[in-house]
């Protein structure tokens, strides 16, 4: 090959790089001796092993749900996993049709008109949703203020704020009482571009989504619902909240086929009512035809995207979380509405059992009244981080401490028991906690 190129060494191919910049003959970068696949798997395996084996009662945006074996057997097929973004539609009908089907399923779950092909995750997706609403408001109220429920996942709040603040969007907080949005503190001053609420909220509690939506619509604000797609198999979809429904539904797709994976990769979804379709960020797949009238699919509304519109795009997103969407589509097809509802119901049943067992312990009580879905905040007689640490020794990941984000709530712990938790595991947790608190 060198001969054909007309050089006598590979080094000669780099001669345009100014000599003073070149690292030199034997680069000392990188991690030491090359490992064979076998050695690497051993090294990584030892580390993976080190953290393994906890029974998980943590939720807070990432859930230990069952994923049918077929899901990743399919999503892991080379044809899906090693393809690129489907720019050449004719050579990418697999991905394109699958994402079209995914979009259809997400619209069904959320009762929205359009879905994109994913954003990075729930939190960054919320930022995109807010920017959509602000762009829409730019044509009317021109407001850059957004009202955000205090009961929203604190990481979502942070990430969204960190992203949208650069564009001068201001986030204000709708305070909570008893773990839910305090309706009577809905503000009366000025216009908001959007109201953001989470259902079930961060504490697992159900908001009065209907009234919140009606208030917002009455005040000219768009409604952004942050939702858990699994619960939508059972709960009223955002598109049907209140009189006219939310405008945007977003959230994290992790409960649809993604292992917890330390939080990533999962995927963010954004669905919208028709008037907001052209504000959506990222890829959108549309159905079309070839000259012979055969149905096919292709990237559409590309004029929203950075590769066409550059600085005028609706977002800078390019690479998204395609493979997780692939898994989600297969997951939803395998589970069906019935399977999702059963998983949601079983998660709720297990969490009810867990809460019952844990609150039977002296000093442990529900932090808030009212129905929760499949997560529940508990008040403990000791600091949560300390309790969690002791539980680790018994192989239990006991939940998520609220100490950092809600210090005002005292010794608060957020727990969750998905459909994967067995009665014995729940009882083991209760027994361990009882001993610790004795």
């Amino acid at each position, binding site marked *: 090959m060198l001969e054909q190129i007309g050089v006598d060494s590979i080094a000669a191919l780099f001669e345009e790089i100014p000599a003073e910049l070149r690292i030199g003959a034997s680069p000392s970068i*990188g991690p030491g001796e090359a490992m064979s696949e076998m050695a690497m798997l051993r090294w990584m395996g030892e580390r993976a092993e080190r953290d393994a084996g906890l029974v998980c009662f943590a939720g807070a945006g990432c859930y230990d749900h069952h994923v049918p074996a077929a899901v990743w057997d399919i999503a892991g097929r080379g044809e899906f996993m090693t393809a690129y973004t489907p720019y050449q539609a*004719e050579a990418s009908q*697999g991905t394109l049709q699958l994402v079209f089907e995914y979009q259809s399923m997400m619209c069904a779950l959320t009762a929205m008109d359009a879905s994109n092909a*994913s954003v990075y995750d729930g939190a960054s997706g919320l930022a995109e949703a807010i920017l959509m609403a602000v762009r829409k408001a730019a044509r009317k109220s021109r407001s850059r203020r957004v009202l955000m429920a205090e009961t929203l996942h604190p990481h979502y709040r*942070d*990430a969204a*704020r960190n992203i949208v603040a650069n564009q001068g969007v201001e986030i204000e907080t709708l305070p909570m009482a008893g773990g839910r949005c305090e309706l009577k503190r809905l503000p009366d001053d000025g216009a908001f571009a959007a109201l953001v609420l989470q259902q079930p909220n961060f504490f697992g509690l159900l908001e009065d989504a209907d009234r919140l939506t009606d208030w917002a619509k009455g005040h000219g604000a768009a409604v952004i619902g942050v939702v858990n797609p699994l619960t939508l198999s059972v709960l009223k979809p955002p598109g049907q909240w209140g009189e006219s429904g939310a405008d945007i539904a977003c959230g994290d797709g992790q409960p649809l086929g993604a292992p917890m994976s330390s939080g*990533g990769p999962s995927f963010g979804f954004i669905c919208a009512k028709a008037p907001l379709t052209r504000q959506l960020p990222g890829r959108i797949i549309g159905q079309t035809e070839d000259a012979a009238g055969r149905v096919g699919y*292709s990237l559409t509304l590309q004029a929203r995207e950075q590769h066409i519109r550059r600085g005028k795009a609706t977002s800078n997103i390019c690479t998204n979380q395609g493979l997780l969407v692939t898994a989600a589509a297969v997951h939803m097809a395998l589970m069906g509405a019935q399977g999702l509802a059963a998983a949601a119901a079983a998660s709720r049943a297990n969490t009810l059992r867990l809460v019952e067992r844990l609150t039977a312990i002296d000093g442990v009580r529900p932090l808030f009244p009212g129905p929760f879905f499949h997560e529940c905040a508990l008040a403990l007689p000791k600091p949560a981080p300390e309790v969690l640490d002791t539980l680790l020794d018994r192989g239990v990941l006991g939940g998520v401490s609220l100490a950092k984000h809600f210090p005002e709530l005292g010794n608060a712990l957020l727990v969750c028991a998905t459909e994967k938790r067995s009665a014995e595991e729940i009882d083991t947790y209760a027994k361990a906690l009882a001993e610790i608190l004795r």
Partner: protein
Amino acid sequence: MSTIFDLSQPGRNAAAQCADLDGAALARLPEAALRAASPALPEVSELQAVRHYTNLSARNFSIDSQFYPLGSCTMKYNPRGAHRAASLSGFLGRHPLAPERASQGFMECLFALQEILKEVTGMAAVSLTPMAGAQGEFAGVAMIRAYHRARGDLERREILTPDAAHGTNPATAVMCGYTVREVAVDGNGDVDLDALKAAVGPQTAGLMMTNPSTCGVFERQAVQIAQVVHDAGGLLYYDGANLNAILGKVRPADMGFDVLHLNLHKTFATPHGGGGPGAGPVGVGERLLPHLPVPVVAQHEGGYRWLTEDDVPGTIGRLSAFAGNAGILLRALAYALMLGRTGMDRVSDFAVLNAAYLATRLKAAGFELAYPNRAATHEFILTLAAQAKAHGVSAMDFAKRLLDFGMHAPTTYFPLLVPECFLIEPTETECREELDRFVDAMIAIAEEAERDPEHLRTAPHNLPVGRLDDVKAARDLKLRWTPG
């Protein structure tokens, strides 16, 4: 092909995936919170779902099945071993909010990756949290913004990019609240230094560029450019999407860059998944250290701990719910471990060798290189303007016809500067015979363009669908399945 919805029959399901629905558990929920009707998801058996998606997958080109020389995208083979490593149950089963004490194995991996990326880029610190290149760019430009603000330097409202820049660069600048000014690239693919000098000023927050540039050539004046921008008080952003061309050869820090992102899914082993996921870690020099996005892993008393907002008060904060695309970071680490010190260098050796060979052969076959005076880097540009003029066939026609030969097309019409262009990146993992097959196909298509241009204009002919009507897709918007 039918959609999964067309296969649906009421009441059918994959029985083994349906636990008994525990109606009692739902009974205590308020009626108003419940949905009136079940969502219209497909109702199919497990076999139907498996068969449907297996057959759909066969309608994709992919690295595992085709040569895929998509310029700028680095469609290379990513070792299955890296995928396996990231799929170890200890990693997949880890909850992101597990206490540090129960996360030391995972955190050691992240820390090791941070260190490796620091070494290969020469930067002072790395944050792994951005979830793709574009989010890395966002983090980088947001840090530039935070830097100027922290210094009270509030008038810098502009980000410069070469006009050949990737679309995410200007889009990112805007997402960060900046306006974009484009700087021309000259006929040899280098930034026009005079134009740059004219463009910089007190309004300049920074310059975003990649090197090798999107023109497929190494920007030889990188140091001078840095000088100009720095002199004007701006910072330099390095878009690391092309790092595979210089891995082990040059460090972005040595070229004067203050901040960068890396596309781990391009340089460091993540299959592209039909659109993602990726990971876009950011690296910074000393100046931007205080603004690094969190979380970051630090060594601490013989173990590891997370640095959060409390530890990095000037941080631009978190950009996602947890710690980024952990699984992709693990793949990158696995890949780096397998490459080792010497392998890093080999990546750029073969990336450039393959591109140079392909450029040489295509040139010899009569194709026109966009930058004939320049050495190819890991990618290079062909312009098919002559063919377009002579036979009325576009680069897109060539691209579609290539699909018929069982090869994915190169990137078309990017960068926008070069008419009828093909941006070709064979990548470091392809072998010579595959490159030769591509040359053969290109020659065959060029001959066909003379003989039967209509055959190109109506290509592809051998795929499950013919050329799709994008205009119809956008005009008669159909974004979801509807019955009937």
